[in-house]
């Protein structure tokens, strides 16, 4: 997309937004008073809680930094935190509460795909931005079709990217042709399963077995037996920490020693701790790896996080970094817009004039009016679990380099992770 047409599009979008704002002046009440209210929702209890709590702590850290520098537009950021308990209905409830009662200026979160699906329409209707900072399966750019005025943004590796990388790791890097899929039965797992099947089909491969498991399942013997009986050379999984650990433990029990390549959630503390030695060698796509933080901003983020929360290993470093960056991006957009009015903040997000050097990467124009995904395959690497930590290497930062928009991602994407894999 060339510069002229992008500017034209932005202008068009801005005009549309201005019209929309005039017609419906519901959004952006969060700016009234002497604070700016920002909603944060995620699971702070249950199996997803390492992600939820880390994301929240990352957001808190960013808000503290912003407030220490005088806040945004002369006002302090006030976080309104809600526990969605990783359940879809509860997610819809807390979102309605945030939008209608608390009248927040923007919302950050959630973690779980089902929760995102159940709740995204409320900020969309109220015209306030929602920056999804962990959920990989939630629709974002897909929403443009029915909602040209799309208020949903994301800063996380989408399932499209992850499924593609998991499949690439098995098929291209390792040269395996027979793979088994094993996914949990939530919206997240099943969506991931679908995306992996599609990515495999594009390479002319049909998985030899497709297994399912439920949250809190403790015995994966039947699923793994089936995969082994069909001759699977790798197990590709989509789930969250505790159940992924049961898969790793089950593979050890059955003596089924093939690579396990998982969704990014295998970097969660509850996977690493519960799988212990059985987790060694498990690979997963990561946007942020704590032990491989090289850029000064990333290092500073890790140090500040460790100091503020007195932890050595961040329970879910990916969630923490994405939470942190989402808060900073939002604050920058508000400062640029000069207001907390929803449509104007959205327009500013779509056209951030200054680059943002965050924990994950340096983002130059992370969003455009037609692309609400800040993370592209270039910023994602395969991490590997090793002795209770996540190891891996992030690609060296390239300051000033624009994050490619959707149209030109394909070319560099295929090479970047592969290069990172084989040093």
């Amino acid at each position, binding site marked *: 997309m060339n510069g002229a047409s992008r500017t034209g599009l932005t202008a068009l979008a801005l005009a549309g937004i201005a019209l929309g704002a005039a017609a419906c002046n519901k959004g952006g009440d969060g700016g009234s008073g002497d604070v700016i209210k920002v909603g944060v929702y995620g699971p*702070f*209890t*249950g*199996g997803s*809680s*390492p992600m939820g709590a880390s994301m929240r702590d990352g957001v808190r850290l960013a808000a503290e930094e912003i407030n220490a520098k005088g806040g945004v537009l002369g006002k302090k950021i006030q976080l309104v935190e809600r526990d969605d308990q990783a359940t879809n209905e509860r997610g819809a409830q807390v979102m309605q509460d945030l939008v209608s009662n608390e009248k927040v200026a923007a919302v950050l979160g959630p973690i779980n795909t089902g929760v995102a699906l159940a709740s995204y329409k409320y900020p969309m209707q109220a015209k306030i931005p929602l920056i999804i900072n962990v959920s990989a399966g939630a629709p974002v750019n897909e929403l443009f079709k029915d909602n040209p005025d799309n208020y949903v943004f994301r800063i996380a590796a989408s399932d499209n990217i992850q499924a593609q990388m998991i499949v690439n790791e098995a098929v291209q890097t390792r040269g395996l042709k027979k793979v088994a899929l094993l996914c949990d*039965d939530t919206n997240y797992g099943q969506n991931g399963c679908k995306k992996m099947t599609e990515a495999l089909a594009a390479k002319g491969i049909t998985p030899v077995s497709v*297994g*399912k*498991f*439920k949250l*809190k399942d*403790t*015995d994966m*013997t*039947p*699923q793994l*037996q*089936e995969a082994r*009986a069909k001759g699977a050379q790798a197990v590709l999984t989509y789930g969250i*920490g*505790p159940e992924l*650990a*049961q898969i790793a*433990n089950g593979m*050890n*029990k*059955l*003596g089924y020693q093939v690579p396990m390549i998982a969704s990014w959630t295998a970097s969660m*503390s*509850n996977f690493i*701790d*519960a799988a*212990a*030695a*059985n987790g060694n060698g498990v690979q997963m796509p990561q946007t942020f790896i704590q032990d491989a933080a090289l850029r000064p901003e990333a290092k500073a983020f890790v140090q500040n996080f460790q100091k503020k929360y007195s932890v050595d290993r961040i*329970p879910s470093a990916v969630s923490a970094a994405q939470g942190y960056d989402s808060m900073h991006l939002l604050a920058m957009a508000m400062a640029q817009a000069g207001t907390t009015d929803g449509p104007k903040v959205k327009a500013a997000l779509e056209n951030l004039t200054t680059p943002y050097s965050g924990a994950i990467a340096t983002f130059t124009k992370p969003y455009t009016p037609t692309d609400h995904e800040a993370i592209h395959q270039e910023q994602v690497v395969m991490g590997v679990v090793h002795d209770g930590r996540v190891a891996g290497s992030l690609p060296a930062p390239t300051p000033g380099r624009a994050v490619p928009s959707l149209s030109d991602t394909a070319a560099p994407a295929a090479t970047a992770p592969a290069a990172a894999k084989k040093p």
Partner: protein
Amino acid sequence: MSDLVQLLLSGVALGMIYALLAFGYSVTFSTSRTINFAQGEFLMIGALVGLTVESRFHLPYVAAALGAAVAGIGLGLLLEYGAIRRALRTGSTATWILATVALGIILRNAAERIWGTDDRPFPAPLGDTPLIVGGVRVLPQELLVILVAAVIMALLELFRRRSAYGKAVTAVAADRDAASLMGINVNAVMTLSFIISSVLAAVAGVLVAPLTLVSPTMGTLLGTKAYAVAIIGGLQSGLGGVVGGLLIGLSEQLTARYISTGFKDTPGFVLLILILLVKPSGLFGKRSIRKV
């Protein structure tokens, strides 16, 4: 062939966990005609207390089980005095159902406050290295679960059938007022049965913890499944719980392997409905005649 044996073994281990909880349901049902809907949470508290004893105080596994048993005694007393006895006095069924459900929610929330919400591993006392017998790989803990559960249930069943307590239970179950007139301390019998049932659940928690993971929500699903098991086997029968547990455990594993992982829980619950239609008192249950 070894695949099938492998599957059967893990099915039996799973079934014995259900059976242990179902057995607890039957112990209290036979004296008080109530079901403790917080049984799954009792298991969870047992596991968490056991984990604390083991990791915080660096005591061996047996001490963890003892710690859980002590917690079980406390929970049993709390349940009996706090929820059941008062509810039974009012004579309303809804009261004890709600009281035990409420106790379960309170325990789960309390556990989240005290221990946090994360799923944590529980170190297996016999290690994580699978034993290999003729191509079948089995974790030492799975064998421990099967063995210990079987021994505990056999001993309790013997106690129920042979001891004076067992006779007292039968008497209380048959007619509370008459038993009281015959000099049986009805309250003491009830209290004891609740303590036994709660200790059973708490110790089961420590037993299964190395196989599952430990978290405040670990007991919810197990409690529900065990309830179905107790209904299938017959609420008044200890043996029924074992048979029901094995039926559900094996059907889950076999269905997941040979039909589809998505249908894992279906046969068990179809069986539950069939039993409720054909023999509502359960496979081994005696028909309860209630004189009005």
